[in-house]
């Protein structure tokens, strides 16, 4: 049986947006931080996601799941923009990987976005495969392969 996620279900039983905000803002910022590597950007993206959720509050069935997907999409959008910026302004935008970051996080930052998101959701948030599949819009089998390929790349990157 699959383990339940660290933040499973609780977020979907929140009765109001205020409760959800109080409960989920921190965890979502930490998730976005792991996916973008930048705390300030993470806070901005999460704030935007809450604003979007507020506008659709009455239509959303599972606010917690909606919020997580929204944050993941926002992070993907951020990566896309950064990639485009970097391809044009290679000298102006420095790489944010610092020498003090553990090697495994450096390697994580270089993975394709979907692999990175799958690894973070699996090993940081402890989400079950089905939830990750929902959040990333793919099948559970794809999640398994994303996680496996991601781990293989990390292992290779950390070989001496």
């Amino acid at each position, binding site marked *: 049986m699959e383990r339940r996620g660290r933040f499973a279900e609780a977020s979907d039983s929140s009765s109001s947006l205020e409760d959800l*905000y109080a409960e989920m*803002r921190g965890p979502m*910022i*930490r998730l976005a931080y792991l996916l973008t590597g930048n705390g300030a950007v993470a806070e901005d993206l999460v704030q935007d996601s*809450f604003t979007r959720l507020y506008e659709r509050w009455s239509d959303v069935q599972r606010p917690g799941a909606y919020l997580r997907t929204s944050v993941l999409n926002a992070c993907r959008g951020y990566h896309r923009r950064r990639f485009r910026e970097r391809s044009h302004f290679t000298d102006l935008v420095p790489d944010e990987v610092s020498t003090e970051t*553990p090697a*495994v996080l450096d390697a994580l930052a270089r993975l394709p976005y979907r692999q990175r998101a799958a690894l973070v959701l699996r090993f940081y948030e402890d989400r079950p495969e089905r939830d990750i599949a929902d959040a990333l819009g793919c099948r559970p089998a794809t999640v398994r392969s994303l996680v496996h390929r991601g781990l293989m790349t*990390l292992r290779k990157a950390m070989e001496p």
Partner: protein
Amino acid sequence: MTEDLHSTELQLRRALTEATQQLRISRPAGVAVPERPTRRWRTRTVVTAIAATLTVIAVATAGLLAARHTTSAHRPKPPTAPTEVAPTKLLQTEANLVVYMNVDAPNDETEAVRQAVRASPEVAKFAFVDHTAAYREFQKAFSNNPDLVNTVDRNALPQSIRVIARHCSDVPGLIVRFQQLPGIDDVTRALGVSHAAAKKLGYKLTFPPVTIKGTCGQHYP
């Protein structure tokens, strides 16, 4: 091989947890997080709380005694009819929702919508913005751009009704109900409007959703 992957997984788990532990998250803007109270402050709070409780008990007893002498007809009734105010007293940014009429909606349709809003017990306060008031606000907003103001006809700006609900939970129901009335162009949440407008102008509004509660229910019980 599997063992290798397992050790990579463990390293990753540890690194992810450590990375988030080092992250410092700022307090959300607009949300008051109380400081940890000092001992003196706590003592003062306890004394104040006791005094407040005694006062409440005294007032309640006096109220009960007084109530025996008054008939139920004299008791104040909870407000049911919404109050209408001038558009200058209820700005678009303060409203919970805005009802936009069609630009060419006839007067009787506009009047019917106005009556429907006035007859809604969920509405605490509303303001009717006619063509003249809308044009005046538009002039003011673009006072530094007279060319733009001159190109717009007064009657091209739609009339609207700004609404503050008694409770936030009433807002979705009101939106659905008003949308079905004839002559309506759109009914929308005010904050959505300002977001959309700001986005068109190239600005980004950020405010935490937690502050929204204060704009309905609380001020207009």
